[in-house]
């Protein structure tokens, strides 16, 4: 309905993506703040069954464009479908995921509708006075945060970084309305053809999904030094992360990097060992539930964001923790 909050529910190859639930979590809050409904845009072929999962995660309405030509994501027909839904139901706000699909689709939609789009946000809030959407995003490589608003044009649009927003606890008894949207692509939409999709084996770590991360930085000192970090991560059942310094020095592989130029993580426990806590690093881990800092330098910034801090040599403290945890088993 006019004035509602919409999110784009990304599905790929018939699977609803986790980020859709994250956006619903954030969208729910925005809709409640505005006292409006939360809608989800769902585009695909034979995807109606996904609607229930979207309701369970907070959607009131699912706007469904279901057609054979949108089985795979293709910019032009998806843009046409999304624009049709937005133009017909006139939401106040539309949030897309900042995924490879969302960052392809959302700008195209915004340009066609002549409205504002804020990229890769880490925070979405309603300004209490103006009731406008305030989109917070890191800029200049994460050195600086910017708050962007779109005062005149509608809808207000943003893409939101995966792994940042929290889904609500799903409630399978929740229901909602499915609104089917008549959609037909035109020939001009088919200038790009889908040929194939290839999944590549992930031998990489999955930091975004990890519940516990033990991360090392400059203070670790060497590749061998990471052995202490690894052992603690192992006994905790967590993953190993690294700061940019650690990665640049070759102590740990790139796919372990946490921060603005690496991964954004939000584990339940983040243990930062020998990490000073640059703004770039903080940009990647501030979503963690509990943060522990271990550093020799009592003035290190990381202590200011930590729930628990220990001033001392990580090469003494980390092995002591590993040992204590082993002794408990």
């Amino acid at each position: 309905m006019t004035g509602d909050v919409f999110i784009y529910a990304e599905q790929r190859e018939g699977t609803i993506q986790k980020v859709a639930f994250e956006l619903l979590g954030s969208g729910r809050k925005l809709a409640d703040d505005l006292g409006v409904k939360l809608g989800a845009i769902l585009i695909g072929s034979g995807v109606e069954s996904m609607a229930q999962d979207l309701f369970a995660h907070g959607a009131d309405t699912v706007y469904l464009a279901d057609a054979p030509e949108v089985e795979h994501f293709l910019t032009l027909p998806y843009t046409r479908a999304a624009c049709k839904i937005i133009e017909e139901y006139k939401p106040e706000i539309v949030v897309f995921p900042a995924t490879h699909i969302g960052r392809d689709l959302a700008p195209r939609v915004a340009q066609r509708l002549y409205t504002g789009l804020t990229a890769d946000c880490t925070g979405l809030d309603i300004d209490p006075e103006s009731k406008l959407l305030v989109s917070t995003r890191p800029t200049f490589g994460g050195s600086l945060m910017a708050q962007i608003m779109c005062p005149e044009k509608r809808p207000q649009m943003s893409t939101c970084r995966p792994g940042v927003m929290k889904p609500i606890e799903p409630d399978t008894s929740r229901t909602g309305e499915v609104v089917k949207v008549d959609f037909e692509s035109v020939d001009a939409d088919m200038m790009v053809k889908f040929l194939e999709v290839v999944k590549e084996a992930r031998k990489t770590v999955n930091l975004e999904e990890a519940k516990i991360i033990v991360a090392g930085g400059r203070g670790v000192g060497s590749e061998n030094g990471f052995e202490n970090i690894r052992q603690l991560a192992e006994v905790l059942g967590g993953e190993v992360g690294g700061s940019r310094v650690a990665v640049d020095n070759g102590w740990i592989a790139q796919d372990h990097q946490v921060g603005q130029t690496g991964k954004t993580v939000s584990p339940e426990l983040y243990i930062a060992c020998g990490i000073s806590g640059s703004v770039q690093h903080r940009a990647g881990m501030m979503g963690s539930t509990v943060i522990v800092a271990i550093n020799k330098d009592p003035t290190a910034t990381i202590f200011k964001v930590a729930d628990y801090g220990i001033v001392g040599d990580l090469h003494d403290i980390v092995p002591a923790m590993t040992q204590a945890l082993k002794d408990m088993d």
Partner: protein
Amino acid sequence: MDIIVCIKQVPDTNDVRIDEKKGTLIREGVPSIINPDDKHAIEEALRIREKEGGKITILTMGPPQADDALRESLAMGADEAILLSDRAFAGSDTWATAYSIARAVNAIGKFDLIICGRQAIDGDTAQVGPQLAESLELPQVTYARKVEISGDKAVIERALEDGHETLETSLPAVITVIGDLNEPRYPTIKGIVTAYRDKEVGKMTAADLNADEAKIGLKGSPTQVKKTFVMVPKREGELIEGTAKEAAGTLIERLQDKNVLR
């Protein structure tokens, strides 16, 4: 195959420091560079030209000093360069930027392909490429990591979070490229000399665009920056003291209380 490559001159964000009190950037003494993804775009255009022939035109919108980025592109081997510069463009967001560049592309006229870098390191939006494609009503393929031209089509590998997809697009089209695509060449000494002594950089202003004035610059931009700030650390933590063994023990107790251990 005539190619337009859109580039941006950006401050090297590795060298950017911030004034934590004012919440602003300290840009003094920070070198300006060609945006890294855009260098890959230039390299890809050069490789396509090596196979297909044709002409490469580099287009940038920016202040007069963006001339340096264009000269560097010429030194890498591009044929022509155009600087779109006017105070009227100040304050452009990605919508107005894409609109203005699209008008400039139309003013250039003939082309078969537009290549952009995926995103610029100062803004990290990745929006201008797709928005340019929409303004020109052209097909787009983003996150390209492999580009093969065959006749009036291009077959492109588009990177996904967990793999890639292969797409075929008709031409002309807009492609945005990522770093995995290629390794940009260095300018040559001879190229640098030619770029500064023998080549001309074409100039365009708002007046040359045949544009709707209400759609350029700050006025034409739907978004506004409300404020910028340095992320303020938020937590009041507890400092745990004692020997390594004592501190480790206390910490584990605290974490157990918080229910964050297995």
